[in-house]
């Protein structure tokens, strides 16, 4: 019984941390915009929204996988 409770707590903490990180990040970059017309992508092709989407997907996928594998 202890492991499922710990797992739920871990999942909540992980998803919460991700949400707060992205919220802080986007709040800052939308408040203080650098000139967008001359923006250069990471390594020339990686969009910032791809990184954010990857963060969300990996966190959720890992959490779901942990539930499926452990319980």
């Amino acid at each position: 019984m202890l492991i499922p409770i710990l797992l739920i707590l871990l999942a909540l903490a992980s998803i919460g941390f991700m949400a707060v990180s992205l919220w802080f990040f986007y709040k800052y970059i939308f408040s203080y915009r650098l000139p967008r017309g001359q923006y250069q992508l990471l390594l020339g092709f990686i969009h910032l929204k791809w990184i954010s989407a990857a963060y969300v997907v990996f966190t959720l996928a890992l959490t779901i996988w942990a539930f499926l594998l452990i319980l």
Partner: protein
Amino acid sequence: MFELDERYIDGFPEESREEVDNTDRSFIGQQKHEEIMLCTRLHPIIILPYVFGIALITAIFFAIVYGTSNVIPKGEIMGQILLFGVFSAYMYYLHRFFNKLLNYYLHVVILTNYRVIEVIKTVYFCNNKDTIDLHKIQDLKKDQDGLFCTIFNYGTLVVEVSAIHETKRVRYLPNPDKWFQTLNKVKRSYIERRRAKVPRGGHSPVVQSSTYDKVGVSRSMLHNQMIRVL
């Protein structure tokens, strides 16, 4: 890297002076008439160690998870505890990796018509700003030593500041040649303007400085004294 707007090298267009209010537009503390001329994040090579790190940890994670699931039957308490520990550790590293990526986007170096600013911001803990006014820059150096620096075109910009014998180093700066040339041009233009005492649209380019504000000496007074000395 942002491209240089050539209009601002030899002066400031009247319309931009009068109409545009840049206060806090691109970074905290931006002045009303302060224009961004060059801006960059650090070279992406600084995130390479984190990419290798997460790749290695992912490999170890998968090895442990599949190794455990083959050896320990599902529902076994020891297996559950082990897997819980492994998942917890991997989640920690995953969050750490993505937060490093987000922090990479927040760390910028900016050259404006008044100063050079390094904004060292992280998502959670750090919100620092390192500023050097253009008139304080005594000497500029560009260090680009090493194979990787040459291949990937990054380097260190060393700015020597007058009076206090201090140096400011901006490491992992992409395209350091362009920064070196542009900073020299902008500095020269700035000093010439100050010597000629040309007002910018009728506004005194007072740059806020907490150090000077504390002792009650305005930056414009210091500017005028410097001009007299020059």
